Every structure is written in C-alpha cells, then in structure tokens.
C-alpha cells in the first residue's frame, strides 16, 4: 500500500491531459488493471464464476485466463459463500484474491463470509492477520436486465466496519482504484457501475491520480453541490450542464468515489461554499448512503446550510422489471427536480 496509496492529494480535474494516456472503456480499464496487477504481483489471483475461458459475463477478465493460466484465474464452483470463504483462506496464505461476483443481486449467499469473517478477521487477530481480498461487484441498473441484476447494495457493506467500499465512475479511476484496492491490505468491496462499462475515457497508467478514498470535485459551482458516485456521476454532470444552460445555475459536482470511508472533508468544504447539497445514488434512499451523508453534513455544516440536504435515489420497492427502470432510477429529470427543490428553500 505504499506506492499507490500515497498518491498526491486530489488534483481536481487535470487541466492538461497527462502524457502517456490512451482511450478505452471503463470495462477495459478494469480489465487492464487486473492484468497489470497480476503481472506486478504473482500473489494476485482472480476467482469467480465464469471468469476463466469465458472472461466473465461482462468480459472484464477477458484474456487473463489465457495469459495467467488456471492457477491464477480460477473458475470456481457456483457458490458465493465458498468463493469468498476460500478467498479468505487464500489471503491468509499470502495471496491477494480478487473475487468477481457475477451480479449485485448474487452477493448475498456470500454476505455472511464478508460480514462476519472478512470484515472482522484483522481486528479479531489484533492486527496479526491481514485479509487483502477485493470483491468486485458489477452493480446498478439501466441495462434492461432481469431481477437481481440491477441492484445497488453498497449501504449494506458500508455499515459494516472492517470493509472499505468504493466505486469508480470513469476509466482512469476504474483502473487506479482497483490497483490501489488490490495493493491495500484491507478488504475492499469494489462496485463497478455496469451501465458505464462501455463509456470511453482516458487512462494514464504511469501513476495514480489521487488517493483511493478521496472525493473529487469534477466541476466547480456556487449555487449548490451535486454529489454522486459510480453510475450517477455522469447523471450529475449532465444535470449540472442542463441547469447551467437552461436556468443559469452554477452547480458544483462531486464524485464521491469512496463510500467507506467517506471523504467528508471534501464534501463539507464544498457544501460550506455552495450551502446546498443534493445526493444522487441508485440505491434506495431509505437507509442509503444519502442518509449518512445528509446526517453528517447537517451535523457539521448546520449553520452553512440554506436548505436541507436532499436525496435522489431508488424507491423503497424491489428494483422493478426493466420496462419500469427508467421510472425507478434517478435520471436527469429527477435530479433537476431536486435541484429546483433545494434552491427553493
């Protein structure tokens, strides 16, 4: 965790693109991060259902089996508890397993191993044992999928001490955040915004851009702050553009990047400037990340706030059949609606 996580502090959007960049999709950036991590450290393993010859149902592990062989790219039996539990054992033996959960809704058979074992083993051993397991979960909706394939369960992990929870929103972060997660010694739940897998972005693999757990101001503004992570960052940026064009509003946009820990200092600094905050995530609002952010921001910025922190997210209902998902997901209009509301206070 030395080299990668001691990266320079948040640089805000780089003005000049760094030299050795290439353009690729977010999914390909994850793939590249896995390949580079495996090449850099022979202890890094990839395991999960269909990650071998198939390259995973999203092809995120494409080519790794051919390059590193079945000892390092392991097609496992269809059993998430078994996958996470054996990954823990492998980590105890000095490996760095990167587990792929096929879809968000299928992590739950492995939840017990994650929550009672993976999260607590370091503390249980008073620091003697390290369990550097990374669990990659393609998450979120918007791809027209069937039940259990579109969920956003990040709050169910963030509440659990011992886990770190992150989600990248573009190719550069997808690459570096995964590299940093793998290099770190803590268990990390790495949520991949599956509907952004095909978004193109620039990647500079020469050095990490920012620390794994720092938020990132993507756009500066003065009227209100929009905060998203993973798939909703793009929505927030779009909303900020529309709000500027149509209503002349100046919205700041933050990509939270890390749900646990929260880079609360950055969020609070922004809110102290803009005095208004709207949090946008796909997960249900009730007991979601927005609740924690709202409570914390209000506690620490009480006298700076002109309006309550508003939350835009999923409803308290099972993720609906896909023909209804556009109505369920926090899209552009719902975000703009919340902006109107937050400005009306």
């Amino acid at each position, binding site marked *: 965790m030395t080299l990668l996580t001691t990266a320079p502090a948040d640089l805000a959007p780089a003005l000049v693109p760094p030299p050795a960049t290439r353009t690729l999709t977010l999914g390909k950036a994850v793939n590249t991060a896995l390949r580079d991590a495996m090449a850099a450290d022979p202890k890094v393993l990839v395991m999960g259902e269909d990650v071998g*010859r198939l390259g995973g149902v999203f092809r995120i592990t494409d080519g790794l089996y051919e390059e590193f062989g079945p000892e390092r790219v392991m097609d496992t039996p269809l059993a998430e508890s078994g996958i996470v539990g054996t990954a823990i054992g492998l980590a105890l033996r000095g490996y760095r397993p990167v587990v792929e959960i096929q879809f968000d809704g299928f992590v739950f*058979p492995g939840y017990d191993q994650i929550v009672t074992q993976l999260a607590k083993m370091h503390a249980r051993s008073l620091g003697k044992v390290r369990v550097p397991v990374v669990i990659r979960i393609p998450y979120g909706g918007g791809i027209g999928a069937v039940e259990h394939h579109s969920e956003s369960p990040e709050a169910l992990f963030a509440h659990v001490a011992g886990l770190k929870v992150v989600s990248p929103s573009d190719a550069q972060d997808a690459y570096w955040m995964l590299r940093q997660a793998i290099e770190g010694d803590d268990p990390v739940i790495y949520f991949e915004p599956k509907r952004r897998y095909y978004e193109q972005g620039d990647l500079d693999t020469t050095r990490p851009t920012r620390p794994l757990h720092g938020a990132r101001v993507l756009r500066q503004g003065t009227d209100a702050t929009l905060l998203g992570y993973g798939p909703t960052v793009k929505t927030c940026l779009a909303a900020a553009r529309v709000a500027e064009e149509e209503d002349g509003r100046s919205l700041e946009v933050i990509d939270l990047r890390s749900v646990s820990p929260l880079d609360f200092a950055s969020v609070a600094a922004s809110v102290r400037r803009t005095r208004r905050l709207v949090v946008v995530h796909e997960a249900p609002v*009730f007991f979601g990340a927005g609740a924690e952010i709202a409570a914390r921001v209000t506690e620490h910025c009480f006298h700076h706030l002109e309006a309550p922190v508003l939350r835009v997210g999923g409803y308290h209902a099972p993720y609906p059949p896909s023909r209804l998902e556009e109505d369920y997901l926090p899209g552009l209009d719902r975000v703009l609606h919340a902006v109107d509301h937050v400005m009306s206070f």
Partner: protein
Amino acid sequence: MESADREKSPGSTREAAAPVQLLTPDGRRVEHPEYSIDVSPEELRGLYRDMVLARRVDAEGVTLQRQGELALWPSLLGQEAAQVGSARAVLDGDHVFPSYRDHGVALCRGVDPLALLAMFRGVSNGGWDPEDHGFHLYTLVIGSQTLHATGYAMGMAKDGAHGAAVVYFGDGATSQGDVSEAFNFAAVYDAPVVFFCQNNQWAISEPTEKQSRVPLYRRADGFGLPGVRVDGNDVLACLAVTRAAMQRARCGQGPTLVEAFTYRMGAHTTSDDPTRYRDSAEVAHWAAKDPIARLRTHLLDTAHADQAFLDEVDHTADQAGQRLRALVRSMPAPDPHAIFDHVYADGHSLVDEERAQFARYEASFAETGGN
C-alpha cells in the same frame, strides 16, 4: 472432449452408473429392471406434442429476443424430454418449484407462456399465481428454491396431504450451500420432495467437472436420500423415474434426488456466446441424441403415429408460437405506478408516501408539458 467421457476423467473418484433409459437414442423401447412404465400410444403422442410445443415456444423466445422484444431468453433447447417427462409425473395436489429455464414444465402445468415471456420482456418479475397451476414463480438466485420446495413439502406432510413437491435446478446449482441444506432438511424431516436436477453439462461456461468431483446423483448419498441418474433426453425414462420418486414421496417414503443427464444445446441465454468455451463437436454429439427425434422415430417405428399427426403437431405448435409473438409485440408497457404495488401485503407508510410523491412528480410534467 465428450461429455460422457468427462464423467470418467481422473478427477472423478467414481464411475457413474449407466443412466436409466427406456428409449434408446435411435428410438427403440428397452426395459429397465427397476423402472418399468406402461404408456398408451395416446400418452406417447401427448408427450411428443408437449415436447414439440415446448421447443416451439422456446424458439419463439429466442426469436423475440433477437428482434428486441425480450430483454433475455434462457433457452431450454435439448432439455424437452427432461422437462416434459418429469412434469407429466406431477399430479394435481403436487407443487412444482421451477428455476428459470423450465418453460416446458410451465407449459405442462398449464401456465400461460405469455407470463413467461412477459417476465423476460421486463414487464413483470413473475406475477402468476402459484396456486393456480401448482407451479411456483421462477427463481433466479441459484438454488434458493430448493429450500422453498423442501419447506413446502414439510408443510404438505404436516397437512397430511397426499402430494409431493418437486424442485428443478441445474448442475451448477448443486454447488450452492442452499441445495445441500435442502437435501439435508428434506432427509432429516423426511419431506415429500423430489429434487430434479437437470444436468445439462454446463453452468454458463463451466462444465460439470468444475462443480463436482462425483456424478451429481451421488450427492444424495452423503445426505441419506436415494439418488438416481436418468437419461435426460429420454422422455419415458424421465417420466418413469420422476413418477416413482413422486409416488415414494407421496407415500411418506421421503425425498429423492433425480439427476437428468441431458445437454444444453443452445447458449446459456441469448446474452451468451458458447463458442468461447465449448466445442461444436460436443454439441454435434448431443444433437444425435435429440429427445424429440428419438420419440418421433419411436412413434413412427411403432406406428403409434403417422406423418399427418406429426404435421398437425408442428402446425399447432407453430400457430401457438405465432399467436404468442403477436401478443408479446402488442403487450402494453406496464404502468410506472406499479413500482409501488405489492411491495407489502399490509401496506407500508413509506411506500405510500413515495407513491404519492411519484404521482405528484409525474403530474408536474403533465402540467408543464415537459418530460
């Protein structure tokens, strides 16, 4: 690499028994010491009709997906005999717990195929009433329905009912802890449940030997229930073996694991590309064991059916397929407010609040004409 051979690979500690077979791949009727069956020509024709219809409806699913009408379709191609044979062993008063590929079972139980297509169109997550046809909702979380079936069967026993539950799941599913727990609960409580495993050789891209070191029907040994492997492409054998297992269950003789040794002829789902992980030779090998062709040959050889019958069956199936296609295409989009329906049976104040919010939000667009 041939699948039948895989079962004898060095990774397997034990040989698999020959599967129960009553109809050879070339359509000959053979006897089995333990499983005999008496089927009338009419029943045989019925089984044939079921299988053809299942295949036709399934093909419609694939086509509709290709045309963008469905989000996804998991094809049953190749598994018609396993599904129809076992489903025809189910009686009124029994209860079926399917997985997500069991369209043939659904049809035999009388479930409207439109409900299945609606599900894969993204219009509902199920929605039929399991009690109408003794056919539970599809379950997508691999293996979890095995416990529901076991609990349901425990309830049947408590009721003193003369019925049994049967649960469908795949070869991959056997690796899930839930499935082992279901075997164990069923054994401990002697529940009237039949575990019907369609071993179609693949769990997406993973062949069976990545799931298990032993032939799957042997899994039962470890839990104290009988396990039997049946030729899953032989509709008669599937019927006979499932019928015997269901009868055992109904008579208080406890659970059975049936492994139907079959083959997934198509892709895992329409999203899958099997050329990445399996040989066309393997597919060709299994094509020669086609379950429908087998029964067709038998029907013709024994003169239990003639070409006219076959044509009529094809025609009927085709009409059903076309009717479905039209219905799917004209299926109305669901009402967005349905998001808030049926979250709870007795209501929940937050759902009410969000429903009202949503209505106001929708109405605001109507007013301003915006979107």
